[in-house]
C-alpha cells in the first residue's frame, strides 16, 4: 500500500515506515513565531536551557500589531528583540527588516519548500503547504519545547485528498473554492487530518491562490494542508531557498485516504461565509443586498500581489461607498504593488492602505469594527468579536467580491463587473 504525503514526510522524520496513528519524533527544518514569541521566551526560560537548539532554524516576525498599537504589544516587541539578539537569531523580520505576516514571510523568503517540516506557533501555519511543505501549527508551550530541544512529537494523521480540475470562471477565485470546501466539510470535517490537494486545477493556480486555500484548511480542523508541488514552486525558490534539504515529495498513487473529493473549478461560483462561523457557506445570490459598513482586503489569506491586483482591477476609476482597508501581506507585496501602480489605483478609489500585517482581521488595529457594524473581509475568520465589537458581523469573501461590494455599499456579485467589462470590450457572447 502506498503512502500519503503526510505518511511520506513523517516516515522520513522517523527513519522507518510509519502509518496513521503512529507517533513520530520530528526535527523541524524551520520554526516560525510572531508576537507570541514573547510568551514563548518566558516558557523557554522555565525549561532551564540557556540557548535555542539552532538560531538559524528559528524565524521571527511581527505581524499582529505593526507598528505596536498598545503598550503591552510594544513591550512584547521589546522582549522578542532582546531575545533575538541574545540568541543570535538572524531570521528576525523586525519592522526595519522588510517583514510581513509570518506565513507570507515563510513562503516569500524561501523558508517553506517541498518536503520540509515547518512548525509555527500560529494556527494558520498550514499556509506553507502551498510551497509543498509539511507545515503544522502548535501551541506556545510546545514551541518553547522545540526551541529548547529541536524536536517535537507528531501523530501521523489520517489524510483527505482533494482533486481540483479546470480553471476559474471570471470573477471567481481561490477563496470561493475554499469557502465551498469548508462549507461542504464543515468546521470539524478535516479534524487532525492532512488535506492534500492535486490536479490540473491546482497546477493552473498561482502560488498566491494555493496559499489562500492552504491557509484556510485549519478552519475545518486540518493538521496541515498541502498542494502538490510543481515547477511554479521550483521557480519561486530559485535563488531563494533557505535550506538545501528540500525535495519534491508527493503521495503515492495508491495511497490510502480517509476520504477523497473532487471539485471542478468551472462549478465554483462567488460565495461568502456568513457570520459567525467559517463553515456557514452561502452563495453570493443568497447574500446579495446585505448592507456593509466596511471592507477589508488583504491579510495572510488574501494579501498577495495577485489579490491586490484583482481588487484594483475591479475598483479602477471608481470610488468605494464604504471605508475600505487594504492590508498587504508583507512589505515586499506593498513595494511591488507600489511599483505596479496598484496602490495608486486603490488610493484614488478611496481605499486606506494599512501597514502590512494581520491588520483588522484580529481586531487589534487598522480598522476594528464598532457595534452593529458589518464588514466584508478577505481574511480567514468571522467569529463573533474577531474584528472588534461582539455586536459586529463579518462576511468572508474573495478580494473581487469584497472590492465589488465596497463599490456598492452592499454585498454584490463580482461577476457583474466582468460582464459589464466584457460588454464594453465588445465581447459578452457568453
Amino acid at each position, binding site marked *: 500500500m502506498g503512502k500519503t504525503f503526510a505518511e511520506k514526510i513523517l516516515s522520513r522524520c522517523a527513519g522507518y515506515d510509519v502509518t496513521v496513528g503512529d*507517533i513520530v519524533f520530528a526535527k523541524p527544518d524551520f520554526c516560525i513565531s510572531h508576537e507570541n514569541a514573547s510568551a514563548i521566551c518566558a*516558557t523557554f526560560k522555565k525549561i532551564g536551557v540557556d540557548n535555542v537548539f539552532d538560531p538559524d532554524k528559528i524565524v521571527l516576525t511581527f505581524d499582529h500589531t505593526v507598528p505596536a498599537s498598545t503598550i503591552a504589544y510594544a513591550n512584547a516587541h521589546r522582549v522578542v528583540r532582546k531575545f533575538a539578539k541574545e540568541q543570535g537569531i538572524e531570521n528576525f523580520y523586525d519592522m526595519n527588516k522588510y517583514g510581513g505576516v509570518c506565513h507570507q514571510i515563510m513562503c516569500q523568503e524561501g523558508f517553506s519548500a517541498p518536503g520540509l517540516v515547518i512548525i509555527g506557533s500560529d494556527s494558520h501555519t498550514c499556509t506553507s503547504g502551498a510551497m509543498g511543505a509539511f507545515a503544522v501549527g*502548535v*501551541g506556545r*508551550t510546545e514551541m518553547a519545547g522545540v526551541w529548547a530541544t529541536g*524536536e517535537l*512529537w507528531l501523530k501521523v494523521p489520517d489524510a483527505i485528498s482533494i482533486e481540483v480540475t479546470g480553471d476559474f470562471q471570471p470573477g471567481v477565485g481561490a477563496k470561493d473554492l475554499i469557502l465551498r470546501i469548508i462549507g461542504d466539510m464543515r468546521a470539524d470535517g478535516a*479534524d487532525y487530518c492532512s488535506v492534500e490537494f492535486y490536479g490540473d486545477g491546482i497546477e493552473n493556480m498561482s502560488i498566491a491562490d494555493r496559499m489562500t486555500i492552504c491557509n484556510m484548511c485549519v478552519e475545518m480542523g486540518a493538521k496541515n494542508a498541502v498542494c502538490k508541488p510543481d515547477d511554479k514552486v521550483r521557480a519561486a525558490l530559485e535563488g531563494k531557498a533557505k535550506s538545501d534539504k528540500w525535495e519534491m515529495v508527493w503521495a503515492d498513487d495508491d495511497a490510502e485516504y480517509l476520504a477523497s473529493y473532487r471539485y471542478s473549478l468551472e462549478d465554483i461560483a462567488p460565495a461568502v461565509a456568513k457570520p459567525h462561523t467559517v463553515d456557514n457557506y452561502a452563495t453570493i445570490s443568497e447574500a446579495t443586498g446585505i448592507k456593509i459598513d466596511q471592507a477589508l482586503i488583504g491579510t495572510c489569506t488574501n494579501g498577495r500581489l495577485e489579490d491586490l491586483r484583482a481588487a484594483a482591477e475591479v475598483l479602477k476609476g471608481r470610488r468605494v461607498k464604504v471605508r475600505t482597508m487594504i492590508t498587504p501581506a508583507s512589505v515586499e507585496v506593498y513595494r511591488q504593488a507600489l511599483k505596479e501602480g496598484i496602490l495608486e489605483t486603490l488610493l484614488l478609489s478611496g481605499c486606506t492602505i494599512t501597514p502590512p500585517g494581520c491588520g483588522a482581521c484580529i481586531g487589534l488595529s487598522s480598522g476594528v469594527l464598532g457595534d452593529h457594524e458589518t464588514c466584508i473581509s478577505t481574511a480567514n475568520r468571522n467569529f463573533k468579536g474577531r474584528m472588534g465589537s461582539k455586536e459586529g458581523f463579518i462576511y468572508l469573501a474573495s478580494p473581487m467580491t469584497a472590492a465589488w461590494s465596497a463599490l456598492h455599499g452592499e454585498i454584490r456579485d463580482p461577476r457583474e463587473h466582468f460582464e459589464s467589462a466584457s460588454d464594453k470590450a465588445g465581447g459578452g457572447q457568453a
Partner: protein
Amino acid sequence: MEIKDKVIKYGNDINTDLIIAGKYTKTLSNEELAVHAMEDLDVHFTKKVKGASIVVAGSYFGCGSSREAAPVALRAAGVSCVFAKSFARIFFRNAVNVGLPIVECDTDRINDGDTLRYVLGSSEVINETTGESIPVNPLPEIMVKIFQTGGLVQYFRETGGY
C-alpha cells in the same frame, strides 16, 4: 498512575470559548483561570468538579481558538482527566503539553455521576457504576510520561529532551 472519580458529562462541540472565555485569557494566573473554567457552559462547574473531577464529553472537544489557557483552566480547576469521542487537534496537543490527561473513547455509555477508573496508558476504562469496560485509544508512551511529570516544561526540566 490511576485516576478514579465521578463524572461530569457534557455534549458535543465544547469549544475553547466555553472552556475559558477569551476575556480571561490575558491573565496568567492559574487560580483566576480555574475560577472561570466552563462558566458559560455550566455555572456550577467549579463546585461540581470538587466531587467529580472527570469530564466526559461527546465529539470535537476543545474546538475553536487554539488558546492554551483552555486545558490550563481545566487542570487548574481540578479536572483529573477528560474523556471524549474526539478532540480538536490543537486542544489535544495543548492538553498534553500542559499536563491535562485526555483520552479518546466511546463515551455514549458513560453517564453524568458515574464513577470511572482508569490507569494512565492502559487500553480500557472501567465504568464502576455500570461494571462495563470500555476500550480507549491507548495513549502513546511519550504522552503518559509527559502527563506523569505534569506537562512538557516539567518533563524537559527533568529529562533534558525526548
